[in-house]
């Protein structure tokens, strides 16, 4: 065994370090040189700060270990110290020469000694010192780490007093306005009802209101008309479809494996349906989290809980694997689950700690592997569930169930290994002990360990290990666990979609490299409000949407823009471009072509008429129309999509068969046979308003002239064609794709 291990190590170093032959088969002469000229100097001059012993004493500098061959070659924070055969690349030499660092710090060594090191590197740095570098420990100061804002418990702040009490509708407004008043800003007045209803419809449903709905709202004399509107929209099943899509970005949800063959996962859509149903049912967010991580352990009898576990298995995974890749592929898969769990629920890039302690956040590599080991035996399976209409096959992530079919099954791919090891620098050939499940130390009090959150399996026959249940328990624990951070991350996502940017502008990074919150007290107030009220999201939507800051108009003011050009402090409501799904869904809706059938398998067919959330997401065949408008690639968690304006989008509006079909549908709905009447109707349908006098005139003139041009081009049906051209232009308007 020891021999095998050594061979592996030698091979690994061969692969990693070019001319490693010298290391694998060091010749005697070289070794003698090392023993007589090099080792004594290292021991005397370097080990005090660069050895396992120094590390144990907390004296290790630059994470560099020079007491083993591997340590010297892997190097420390600045890179490899010794690159055999390459003097220029060997930091050790340049440090001795005082060209990069100045080592040893006590004074430059004699030139002859430095020349020995140069020669040693040139002959391939022969070095008999076997063994891994001791894992570096204790370089992260957890106590200091815990003081960073996002790792702290909520700071309870009462909503502040403001000068302009008349603008305040909700406590949110106090936080916003107090900050604005400090900066010499003030917000806009409330927008008119036509603007408000369109804004609320797109925000909550991702669809425009019908003319009848607009009229009813405008004519509602009830002072609570707006609150009633929000309540009604939150009850619409379309709400879940709209907000599920936001979460599916975070969950890097797709329905195929990716990589080589990109096989479909035909039963993965149940996870998407779970998200829609959970949101529509206003499932408490902490339960939403727990079920996605461990629904199979916590509520195995509830089909919805089983569907929720699709979260863990939604990432890409290679299908064509060679034996040499089996184990590293499994560690990549553990990494996908670990990293996605980290950014999705905690806004933390835990994945960065896979190869070394996190460079910026207080997450040691040990924590990473303990966290990852939670998923050691978790695999994708397909099971039959009773979903109301008989048995249906559902893809779940669980333990102790048969694995789904894999391309490499006939090569013996094991799907999982019984244990997860600590890996030195993420290398599966460099195992350093078995990792027991654990969580992030920075998000637990010093006196607690993982056992505090452990959920014991209900009986000895339990299929699953309940390690994921324990993790879910810790993430949502607001007393000692990560619950406060989880709540902050959740409210920030809601805020981001309602206001265009998060209070923390980097929704997937609440670590030290992320943006700091623009309104930290508000974030904590909202997060603690969420927790206090049973983690209910619908209530939180309403709290946000009934604030004056949400309801204000979009009017621009150069004087205020000079103080806050980016509108970080929300003195106006900037128009926001709709996402890919909302653009397409709105076009279908206005065309009268939208098929509102919910749930079930999706399709790749761009001509389908259901909402875009029902596109089948195949990683190698992403829907072109969605990709044009910044659809994610569904490979890693995306917290905020980019918003680009590119010419091919315009080509879609101008030339795509779909845009033309939608325009035809739209034109078909214009019953008023007079040109001016049709223009009025079109504006009401597409933009929820009447045209201005000028718009009416321009449009009517176009219809007449375009009809004539079609006639001249010899087209029969010229009047209808002109109307279609007009409708296509309406669907292409800025006002159609930007919501005030």
């Amino acid at each position, binding site marked *: 065994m020891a021999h095998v291990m050594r061979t592996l190590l030698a091979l690994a170093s061969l692969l990693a370090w070019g001319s490693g032959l010298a290391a694998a088969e060091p010749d005697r002469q070289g070794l003698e040189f090392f023993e007589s000229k090099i080792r004594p100097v290292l021991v005397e001059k370097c080990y005090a700060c660069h050895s396992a012993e120094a590390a144990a004493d907390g004296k290790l500098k630059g994470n560099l270990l020079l007491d083993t061959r591997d340590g010297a070659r892997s190097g420390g924070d600045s890179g490899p110290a010794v690159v055999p055969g390459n003097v220029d690349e060997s930091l050790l030499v340049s440090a001795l020469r005082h060209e990069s660092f100045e080592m040893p710090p006590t004074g430059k060594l004699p030139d002859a000694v430095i020349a020995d090191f140069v020669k040693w590197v040139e002959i391939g740095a022969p070095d008999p010192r076997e063994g891994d570098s001791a894992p570096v420990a204790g370089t992260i100061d957890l106590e200091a780490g815990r003081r960073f804002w996002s790792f702290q418990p909520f700071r309870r702040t009462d909503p502040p007093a403001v000068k302009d009490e008349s603008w305040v509708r909700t406590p949110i407004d106090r936080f916003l306005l107090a900050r604005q008043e400090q900066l010499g800003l003030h917000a806009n007045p409330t927008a008119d009802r036509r603007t408000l209803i369109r804004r609320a419809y797109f925000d909550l449903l991702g669809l425009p209101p019908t003319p009848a709905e607009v009229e009813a709202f405008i004519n509602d004399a009830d002072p609570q008309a707006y609150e009633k509107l929000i309540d009604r929209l939150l009850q619409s099943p379309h709400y879940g479809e709209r907000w599920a899509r936001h979460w599916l970005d975070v969950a890097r949800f797709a329905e195929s494996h990716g990589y080589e063959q990109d096989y479909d996962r035909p039963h993965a859509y149940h996870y998407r349906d779970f998200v829609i149903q959970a949101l529509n049912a206003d499932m408490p967010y902490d339960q939403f989290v727990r079920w996605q991580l461990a629904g199979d352990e916590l509520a195995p009898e509830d089909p919805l809980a089983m569907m929720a576990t699709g979260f863990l298995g939604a990432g890409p995974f290679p299908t064509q694997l060679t034996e040499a890749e089996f184990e590293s592929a499994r560690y990549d898969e553990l990494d996908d689950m670990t990293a996605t769990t980290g950014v999705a629920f905690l806004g933390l*890039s835990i994945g960065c700690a896979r190869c070394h302690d996190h460079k910026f956040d207080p997450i040691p590599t040990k924590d990473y592997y303990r966290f990852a080991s939670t998923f050691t035996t978790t695999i994708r399976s397909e099971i039959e569930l009773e979903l109301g209409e008989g048995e249906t096959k559902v893809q779940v992530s669980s333990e102790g169930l048969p694995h789904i079919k894999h391309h490499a099954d006939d090569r013996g791919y094991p799907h999982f290994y019984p244990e997860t090891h600590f890996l030195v620098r993420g290398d599966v050939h460099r195992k350093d002990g078995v990792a027991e499940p654990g969580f992030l130390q920075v998000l637990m009090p010093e006196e607690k360990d993982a056992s505090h959150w452990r959920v014991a399996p209900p009986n000895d026959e339990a299929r699953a290990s309940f390690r994921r249940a324990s993790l879910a328990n810790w993430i949502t624990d607001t007393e000692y666990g990560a619950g406060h951070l989880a709540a902050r991350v959740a409210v920030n996502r809601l805020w981001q979609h309602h206001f265009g940017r998060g209070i923390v502008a980097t929704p997937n990074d609440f670590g030290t490299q992320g943006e700091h919150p623009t309104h930290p007290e508000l974030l904590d107030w909202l997060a603690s409000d969420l927790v206090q009220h049973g983690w209910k999201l619908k209530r939180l939507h309403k709290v946000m949407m009934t604030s004056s800051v949400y309801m204000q108009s979009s009017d621009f003011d*150069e004087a205020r823009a000079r103080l806050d050009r980016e509108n970080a402090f929300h003195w106006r409501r900037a128009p926001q471009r709709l996402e890919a799904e909302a653009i397409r869904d709105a076009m279908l809706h206005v065309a009268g072509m939208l098929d509102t059938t919910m749930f079930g398998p999706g399709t790749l067919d761009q001509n389908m008429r259901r909402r875009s959330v029902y596109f089948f997401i195949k990683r*190698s065949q992403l829907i072109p129309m969605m990709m044009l408008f910044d659809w994610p*690639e569904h490979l890693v968690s995306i917290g905020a999509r980019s918003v680009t304006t590119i010419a091919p989008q315009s*080509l879609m509006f101008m*030339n795509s068969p779909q845009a033309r079909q939608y325009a035809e549908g739209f034109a078909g709905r214009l019953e008023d046979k007079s040109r001016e009447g049709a223009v009025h109707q079109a504006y009401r349908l597409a933009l929820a308003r009447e045209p201005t006098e*000028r718009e009416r005139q321009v*449009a009517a003139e176009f219809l007449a002239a375009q009809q004539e041009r079609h006639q001249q081009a010899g087209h029969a049906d010229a009047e209808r064609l002109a109307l279609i051209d007009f409708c296509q232009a309406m669907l292409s308007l*800025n006002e159609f794709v930007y919501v005030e």
Partner: protein
Amino acid sequence: MTPPLPNRREMLRHAGCGFGLLALAGMLHEEGLVEAAPLGDRALNPFAAQPAHFPAKAKRVIWIFINGGPSHVDTWDYKPGLEKWNGKSIREFDAEFKDTTGFFKNQVGALMKSPFAFTPRGESGKMVSEIFPRLGQHVDRMAFIHSGYTESNNHSPALFMMNCGLPRMGYPCVGSWVNYGLGSESRDLPGFVVMSDPKGRGLPKGHAANWSAGFLPGVYQGTHLRPTGDPIDNLQRPEKLTDELQRSQLDLLKQLNETHREQFAADGELAARIESFELAYRMQSAAPEAIDIDAEPAYIQKLYGIDVPECGHFARQCLVARRLVERGVRFVQIYSGGMENQRSWDGHIDIDGNHRQFAGETDQPVAALLTDLAERGLLEDTLVIWCGEFGRLPIAQTGEKPGRDHNPHCFTAWLAGGGVKGGVSYGESDEVGYKAAVDRVHINDLHATILHLLGIEHERLTFKYNGRNFRLTDVGGRVIEPILA
């Protein structure tokens, strides 16, 4: 009244216009719609030309991707030693050889000499396989790297490694990084164009992830010219919408957008979107023009071999590549071959037949591309790369006709053109071509060198994503100085 000007950072957040973005920014500027931005202000325009880190010869890249993994010992890495070892077990050569090195562990044959004859070519006398009669004429323009190695013995991770620097899905590829680093020189064409096999043999393994922008803004992703049918989506006007009719429709759209724009004059992206329709309108003619090889004179078409049945399809793509770089496209990648096995250079069965076929498909077109670029003075500042995702083992893969299996330990690449020293070879494989042995070149090193040739310091080209500054060369990368002119 002058409308207030949108600010640059705001524009970056909504940055856009993959195609012709420079033109768009220019127009907005001309029309006084945005603050005057110094040329190269990426905040205003993600495709604005960026200053290089240092002066460099190469301005653009054409990468001939030898998909499936070309056998180095049968193409450019002449191994007389392999004749000596022919028929012997590779374990006699290297006791640590593992059957799982290649893809098929049950078809490990003996060491096998190349079925092809090698002859010295050019003034440098480089030994070249008989399957490249025309490319052999250009060896004095090429710098060979014989000591490349990669991290996976499997197509798609190795493709990702070669394209993105990591053997996993989801990272930006070289073309995206280069466009992010340098911006675009084209007014109405994408900065990064990819062409794949037009003979129905599929896409490279991993598909579009090979030209993905990863976590870079989506505007930097490669534009895949569809090999059959319309090369770009939605370039054709709807039936019954003539140019004139569409023009008047777009005029209407512009007029109706006006009221809205007056109200939101400060929101630059709204103005940008109005202009993007004008750009799209122009692209309808510009893009087809750029790829219209029928406009090329007969002697040029003949040079590339457009009418030669064996290589006509690849000749078209090479000619399109030249037309694209001529029009300012920064990075063009052409995949030779489709998905795998006999559909690409993946010569598992019958290495002789496979490589003869694919060399035959590419030899004349690539040679013509070098000649044509040189004659136009474009080769001086265009970098041409010939490289696949890995090499192939010097042993036979057993079967009816001997093939060769994947070899992650060694491959050959060549570079030619802008900033490259011609007629040189760097690095060596071992005696039989099993492993890179002397001056080994990691893919990070190859990428660092490509970036260097374009005037980019690989350590300075970074993008912050989920809390970390990423670069194409990850934590490695060393410029291969000896091949620089």
